[in-house]
């Protein structure tokens, strides 16, 4: 039988995940000769052998790929004649990237996210007999930094932040040994040849640096720790005084801090975990997982004030493991920044910005090449769901339902900002970047976009952006010189982000429950039911409107929003408002009423999020939001403490201009009427139930009219677990199929992905 000679290209996340060693092992087993190497972002093989063996090889290339690999495309061609027949199978040095296509249409998906320390490395880390015993930068083919250290592709040590660390003899031997776990592990290092720790105040290194950091934390101090994608601020999570001090120094009044614990056992002490939560906690991405805290768990009151929800995560690197074991208890581990600034990545920057915040910096000499904040996730109805997508997830590409004809950049919204680069079927969603109001966050966005375009050799031809002219992302989009600009309505982008994740085709119903986004009629939207496709939408229903007295000021102050509903909402409230109004400053009430009456800086919004804010204030739960969404978070927390199944408050559906409108006035009246008589927790739960009932009614009507039974739920309000779980259950009971976001946030972090999906579909539709 004559051997065949195939050239195979594997596309997807196939570099930095142990793919070449895997190919090597399979080829050896099958007796296939040839070679494998990284090229551009792809893996290239030449395989020579009997056709049966080659078929088995290609099957294995997909089916048995390492867990962290994501094979998206596999092409086989006959190797051009005239090449030397290989005598064995070898791993070759990376070839140059393939010549860029016309206009630079490089592929996506070659850059893997960072991977938490694996079990094997962890065992070695604490094995006194191992040569990497207690080495903080221990990694292997299966774990370690990836996206945060890459300079250029293909992913090889020479093009990473590890380039400056020449392998010692022992490490080089492991790197070259096909039988070793560190065969071609680009991050391989040891105490003799790899990165070293340093302590800022006196330059101590190694174990002494670690000991200094541990002593500082144990002594009630704050330490800035250089993590994978940025510095983190770490302190004792049990000590009230230091947690409060951290809030003061970081200028972060109330937004919850994430807590890192040594292991799952320690996590179980602090919170009630479902098996799905535990999977999420221990997964390779190691996000901060939002879970219900156990009452009386000992955490300082300042860790998560006003909410029972706790953000927990496990060590992501060997350094974190060493630190947590030495400290012994849970630590606050929060982004190293002040207020709204982006997380600090640069050492000099850390010294300048964090010196006043931290009492010492635990750094090291491996530079951070790209900024990746910690990700935040939760389980909703057993499924992992991202609230903030960054380290461990980004920049893993997501699928687009309609492939992009040319490279698209979608610039996202304003807060919780992300951008998306789309090319072909792939959508590369950049890491969470914070609020663009901050000049440094805006610069970080443009830098990160430039870096990813360069890395993947992409030149955007189309820019997709929000309708809001004041978003700094929209302003940025206006300055791009591209062939086409595509404005995408905010809530269309929200619901499309959900549909696209699930690969739906055809029309779907979109429920966008959100804070605020600019509608196509110049008013603010946020409680919308749309009949949507990827290219367009028709509005079917909305929440009743209310003025925002003072615009953004009303968002910061839910009490003022509540006054807006009572004084100038679309529907009059015929209940006794005195008990609520009397609680407020009379001068403020007078001015706000006047503003509403005269329409002074009172944009109107049909927002679900603002209604949650208002009800939170009416119930006396939160009059002033210390961070974005606090009133709704506290309302959800209050509802979660309600022991019994709540029944809904009264509600009504009105009709105007061909739209169904949720008339919230009976609901608000009932809240006002029951306050003081019915426990707040019961009312909070009843309000959630009301929104669920209203939504089901609207969706059922819409399904009858449109014959569309699939409902995509998205928008910032879907971060509310009671709402998300309640809606999916109730919609299913009504015979509809509900979808939630999982891979991208339901909030504005998912907007750019939705924009990209819309732009790609419109592009395809136009041709």
């Amino acid at each position, binding site marked *: 039988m004559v051997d065949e000679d195939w050239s195979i290209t594997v596309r997807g996340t196939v570099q930095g995940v142990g793919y070449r060693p895997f190919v090597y092992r399979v080829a050896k087993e099958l007796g296939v000769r040839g070679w494998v190497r990284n090229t551009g972002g792809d893996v290239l093989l030449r395989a020579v052998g009997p056709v049966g063996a080659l078929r088995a090889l290609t099957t294995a290339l997909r089916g048995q790929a390492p867990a962290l690999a994501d094979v998206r495309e596999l092409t086989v061609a006959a190797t051009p004649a005239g090449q030397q027949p290989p005598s064995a199978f070898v791993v070759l040095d990376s070839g140059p990237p393939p010549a860029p296509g016309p206009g630079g249409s490089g592929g996506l998906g070659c850059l893997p996210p960072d991977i938490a320390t694996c079990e094997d490395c962890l065992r070695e880390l604490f094995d006194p007999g191992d040569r990497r015993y207690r080495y903080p930068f221990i990694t292997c083919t299966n774990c370690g930094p990836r996206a945060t250290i890459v300079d250029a592709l293909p992913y090889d040590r020479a093009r990473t932040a590890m380039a400056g660390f020449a392998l010692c003899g022992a490490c080089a031997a492991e790197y070259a040994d096909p039988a070793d776990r560190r065969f071609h592990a680009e991050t391989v290092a040891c105490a003799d040849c790899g990165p070293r720790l340093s302590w800022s105040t006196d330059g101590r290194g190694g174990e002494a640096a670690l000991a200094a950091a541990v002593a500082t934390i144990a002594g009630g101090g704050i330490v800035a720790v250089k993590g994978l994608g940025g510095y983190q601020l770490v302190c004792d999570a049990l000590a009230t005084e230091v947690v409060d001090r951290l809030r003061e120094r970081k*200028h972060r009044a109330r937004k919850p801090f994430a807590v890192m614990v040594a292991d799952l056992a320690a996590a179980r002490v602090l919170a009630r975990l479902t098996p799905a939560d535990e999977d999420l906690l221990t997964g390779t991405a190691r996000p901060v997982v939002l879970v219900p805290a156990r009452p009386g768990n000992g955490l300082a009151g300042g860790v998560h004030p006003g909410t029972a929800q706790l953000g927990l995560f496990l060590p992501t690197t060997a350094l974190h493991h060493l630190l947590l074991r030495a400290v012994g208890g849970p630590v606050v581990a929060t982004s190293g920044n002040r207020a709204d600034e982006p997380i600090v990545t640069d050492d000099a920057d850390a010294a300048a910005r964090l010196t006043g915040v931290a009492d010492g910096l635990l750094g090291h000499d491996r530079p951070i090449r790209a900024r990746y904040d910690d990700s935040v996730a939760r389980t909703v109805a057993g499924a992992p769901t991202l609230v903030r997508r960054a380290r461990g997830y980004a920049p893993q590409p997501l699928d687009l339902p309609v492939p992009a004809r040319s490279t698209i950049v979608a610039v996202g919204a*304003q807060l919780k900002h992300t951008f998306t680069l789309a090319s072909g079927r792939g959508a590369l969603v950049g890491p969470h970047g914070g609020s663009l*109001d901050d000049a440094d966050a*805006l610069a970080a966005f443009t830098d990160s976009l430039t870096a990813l375009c360069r890395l993947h050799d992409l030149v955007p031809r189309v820019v997709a952006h929000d309708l809001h002219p*004041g978003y700094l992302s929209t302003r940025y989009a206006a300055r791009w010189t591209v062939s086409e600009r595509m404005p995408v309505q905010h809530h269309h982008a929200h619901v499309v982000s959900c549909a696209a994740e699930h690969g739906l085709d055809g029309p779907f119903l979109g429920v966008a429950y*959100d804070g605020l986004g600019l509608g196509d009629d110049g008013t603010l939207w946020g409680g919308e039911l749309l009949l949507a496709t990827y290219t367009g939408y028709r509005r079917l229903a909305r929440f009743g409107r209310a003025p925002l007295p003072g615009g953004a000021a009303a968002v910061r102050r839910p009490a003022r929003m509540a006054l807006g509903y009572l004084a100038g909402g679309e529907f009059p409230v015929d209940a006794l408002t005195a008990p609520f109004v009397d609680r407020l400053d009379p001068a403020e009430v007078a001015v706000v009423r006047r503003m509403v009456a005269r329409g002074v*800086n009172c*944009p109107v919004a049909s927002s679900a999020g603002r209604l949650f804010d208002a009800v939170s204030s009416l119930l006396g739960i939160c009059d002033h939001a210390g961070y974005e969404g606090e009133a709704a978070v506290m309302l959800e927390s209050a509802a979660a403490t309600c022991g019994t199944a709540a029944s809904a408050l009264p509600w009504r559906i009105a009709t105007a201009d061909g739209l169904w409108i949720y008339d919230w006035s009976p609901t608000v009246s009932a809240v006002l009427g029951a306050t003081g008589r019915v426990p707040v927790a019961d009312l909070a739960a009843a309000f959630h139930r009301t929104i669920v009932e209203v939504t089901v009614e609207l969706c059922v009507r819409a399904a009858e009219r449109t014959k569309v039974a699939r409902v995509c739920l998205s928008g910032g309000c879907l971060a509310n677990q009671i709402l998300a779980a309640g809606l999916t259950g109730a919609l299913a009971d009504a015979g509809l199929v509900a979808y939630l976001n999982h891979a991208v946030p339901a909030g504005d972090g998912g907007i750019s992905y939705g924009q990209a999906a819309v732009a790609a579909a419109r592009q395809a539709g136009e041709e």
Partner: protein
Amino acid sequence: LGHGSGGQLSAALVTGVLLPALGTAAPSGPLEDAAVVPVAGVDIVVSTDAFVVSPLFFPGGDIGRLAVHGTVNDLAMRAATPVALALAYVVEEGFPLADLRRVAASAGDAARAAGVAVVSGDTKVVGRGAADGLYLVSTGIGQRLPGAAPSAAAVEPGDAVLLSGPIGRHGTAILSVREGLGFDSDITSDTRPLHRLVAAMIAAGGAGVHALRDPTRGGLASALNEIAAASGVPVEIDESKLPVPPPVAAACEILGLDPAHVANEGCLVAFVAPQQAEAVLAAMRGLPEGADAVRIGTVAGGGGEPGRVTVRTAVGSRRVLDMLVGEQLPRIC
């Protein structure tokens, strides 16, 4: 048309509709408060402005004073001494004669106090509903002060950003009295002429005074953004140095306004070469209209984004200070 509140949309109207209509007759260079026209070898400065303010009478002034000060100040921002003014009145039928007298007298007082003659005028009465009470149009002619040619495009890295006095008074006073918000007992308009202040600044700083602007509609934020864009430089402002009178701050807080977006009629912002900055600041403080003058920021060197204005906040972070886009719609989701 929703282009009324100053800032980006009015700029779009000018550059998108009005200037193209002029074709080759349109002025070249950046948009300025007034134009410099060489006549027989002498630089004559010309400016015109229409005044449509509601209410016509407000704490600290009225439309007559405003029409005089507005044009005097626009001339002053090109370093010109006002020489003569022309005033046109558009009066709605039925407008009270007593009010018209009051406005005219006030305009006369303001012109006399500013030392400028009103040399020409016009009056048109239009039908009921064709105008909202009373509009004024004022045109001014001025003479260039020797040794200075400030322009929005002349700013250089390292320049000091000077502000002649507190911001936010005019806009909040007008809004408060128009809408009955009750802040006007504490806040009066800052309307006043600034040409003497400018003369003192030029005398002290000469050609080192690179740019001058009175932050009227769109407020300080618009003025800074226009200059940053015209000169292609990054501007960094120190929030703690911004003079916002406490009653203005309180009103803005409750109204949800940024004082930097609120209109002023009696202060100016100047970009001055670092060598002359102290002398100019001292000269400003020597006059009542500049008594509270303060350095609020700097034109950044290499690092910043050209055309971007940032504010260093109290906590040390840097916020992007943007121009208003139409109504101030919240950007929060």
